[in-house]
């Protein structure tokens, strides 16, 4: 099976990474962290998965929006379903309201991922608990494209924790309660507009609203450059 051999070759680094990854890597060779936040662009993304098993489960949709000049750009959105290797009507697809039929019609990761990487361009990746999204993105990238993404990540959950710890808020909440850091709860707690949950694009948008909220609230608290922000919410890419 040639495709299986290809995958094997890539895993063993016998074939060079896909050109789109090479370009992606190049874009971050001399990445600077000292510039003001306005100078960076961000891609806020959310992935929907078949489940949370790191070994078995797969990405079935990606939603993303770009933030330019610290504003969400409605003309730069990304929303795709991905046909998983194994289609079975499991729990996650029900939650995400994606039917198995829709998944059968969707493109494969081989098609979608390079498009997504091109969309990401030289932006920073932002997500809520972004480590999970990046784990599955990179896992798939390595399998089919022979490498991983070079875009640095920013976790809005960590930012939110940091924001609440730093006492920006003017009321007393249960700061250490784990449940209060879910996207839903933070959205409620900060009183942000609410979008449909469990749709990758809407979730990405919801996260983007949270990110904008935190960024601008932080700005009044003295965070101006990316470096400042990193101290608050960086994750290992």
């Amino acid at each position: 099976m040639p495709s299986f051999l290809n995958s094997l070759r890539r895993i063993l680094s016998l074939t060079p990474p896909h050109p789109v990854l090479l370009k992606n890597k190049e874009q971050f060779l001399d990445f600077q962290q000292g510039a003001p936040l306005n100078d960076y662009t961000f891609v806020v993304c959310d992935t929907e998965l078949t489940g949370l098993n790191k070994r078995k489960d797969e990405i079935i949709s990606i939603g993303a929006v770009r933030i330019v000049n610290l504003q969400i750009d409605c003309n730069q959105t990304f929303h795709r379903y991905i046909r998983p290797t194994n289609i079975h009507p499991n729990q996650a697809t029900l939650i995400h309201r994606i039917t198995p039929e829709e998944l059968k019609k969707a493109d494969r990761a081989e098609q979608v991922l390079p498009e997504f990487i091109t969309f990401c361009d030289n932006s920073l990746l932002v997500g809520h608990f972004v480590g999970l999204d990046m784990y599955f993105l990179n896992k798939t990238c390595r399998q089919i494209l022979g490498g991983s993404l070079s875009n640095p990540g920013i976790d809005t959950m960590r930012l939110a924790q940091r924001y609440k710890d730093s006492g920006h808020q003017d009321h007393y909440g249960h700061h250490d309660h784990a449940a209060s850091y879910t996207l839903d709860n933070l959205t409620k707690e900060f009183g942000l507009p609410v979008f449909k949950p469990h749709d990758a694009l809407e979730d990405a948008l919801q996260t983007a609203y949270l990110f904008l909220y935190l960024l601008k609230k932080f700005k009044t608290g003295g965070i101006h450059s990316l470096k400042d922000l990193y101290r608050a919410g960086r994750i290992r890419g």
Partner: protein
Amino acid sequence: MTADGPPDVVVDFFANIMPFTELDHATLHRMARHVKVDFFPKGTRLFHAGKTKISHLLFIQQGGVKSFIVDDEGEVTLKDYRGEGDYIGALGIIRGTKASLDVETVEDTFCFLLPQAVFLDLINTQPGFSQYYLKSFSEKFVGTAYAELRRHKMTRRGDENLYLFSIQVGDIVKKTLRKTSAESTIQQAAQEMAQHRVGSLLIHRPDLPDEIIGIITDRDLSTKVLAPGLDYNEPVRHIMSSPVATVLSQSTCFDVLLKMMSSSIHHLAVERRGKIIGVITSHDITLIQGISPYSLFKEIGKQQKISGLYPLSQKIPAMIRNLIKEGAKPGNISRMISILNDHILEHLLTLLEEEMGPPPVPYCWLLMGSEGRREQTFKTDQDNAILYADPKNEQQGKDAQEYFACFARQAIDHLVQCGYPLCPGEIMAVNPKWCQPLSVWKGYFARWVGTPDPQEILHATIFFDFRAGFGKSVLADQLRQHLSKLTERQELYLLHLANQCLAGRAPLSFFKNFIVEKNGEHKNKLDIKHQGITPFVNFARILALKNNVRETNTLARLHVLSRENILDETLWAKAVNAYEMQMQLRIIHQLHQIEAGQQPDNHITPDELSELDKRMLRNAFEVIDRLHGVLKTMFPTP
């Protein structure tokens, strides 16, 4: 760049606000692609008056802003509050000027930003757009224009409906052109203006009377002559504006108004075939806008017989529909309905008096409830009463009783014929209890205030909103003064009113399970009047009575209360928004019913509402809770 289309939330937002509702799906999508989303924490200054160049039109998705002016001494004057669904910056973009007001967020605010170029493109390509935005700018003119028309009883030729968007400016420009030579002295020019009662004068070349080279206005006289102390004998050319800004006589009034707004020049010379034929002012044009309601107004005044008035009130809905289409605010609409109803009443009673002969004593026809508050919509039950001067002797008393009983009976019949239904509670002048001399009325109020019985006061609330509808308004004033004095001494009845108000809970769970009627004809419907609007009316009434505010209109009461710092400024703004939003829903609901041939009511089905309406309604209900909080602090339960 990959673009998978604008997010649904952006498209939905615009699809639900005027005038974007008019756009077709493809245009809406194309437009939404250009939108950016931004967040401004509470206290962010968005515009600096005179400094900020406006690059985007801002639409508030969530949150709120205030606009204000800071004068040279640092004095701050609040102009307006804007909330969800409102826009900021349109005037500046259309005029191409910098921000004219300071704007600051009063809450954490998310905005949709529409780039200037995209907005201007819509203005130029979508006919409904320019009308909508122009209308909202000129709204405050419109309100005052009607009042002026009414006061001056101006006459105008022809009865035809003229419209701002179809009349050419050449048709309304004044026929005589006033001009003077550039060598005339300032004093001569001023005398000329005074003599002909004009606000401007064209200036021609001394040797060529047909060549217009400039213009002077009232304003030039004050700013260029009086203020700097210029010699009145200077030639007028020293102060004229030159060359004259002109418009072509075939331009529509709409275009002309737009030009005036964009150039901030309010006197334009009208040119026909290369020749100046006159001057048009913004005032001339705002009068045109009033023509359609005005023609109805005039038609009412023209009737020689009472029966001629019967069909006229039926014409009000059609006229209101136009106003709504053009974007008039509900406050203006109900004021307009009140003006027209008042006019019908005034004319009807005048004709009736002519029929019956003069009354034995002076009287005042009182309006109560929503009529008293000038808050009528289409469905207006009669709530009225007669208050007459105390008779001097027994005979006069008997005459008065007889006369007014007969007068009231006929008036009420005629009003029914005009389409105003009888009051089910019989609060009408035809009820002998409510047709009484001043001393008796004073006694009524003394009892309600002095020894309040909770049940009785509940029925009496609408009397506290009385105003003079026709006749000697001084009688109504005397009664109002009497009530103020009573209230100063005795506030207990206000506690009863407050308790009554607090007993009704805000229908907040409307959106989860919907507090709606469980049984009967109006099952699963929200009574927007009693559940939504009445709490605001009650709140304003109690605070107005307590603080001796003489206004009866709810918005006017709230405004005074906020100005006097009795009501918190932010809460005031929220209350006004919430109240107007509900009035709007109610008016549109009733208009639909009338047009479908049904009797208008106040029962709204949740399914009729858009998502945006629901969200705004929910916010409106939340305000009720806050108003109740104010009442609780003011009238603590022991």
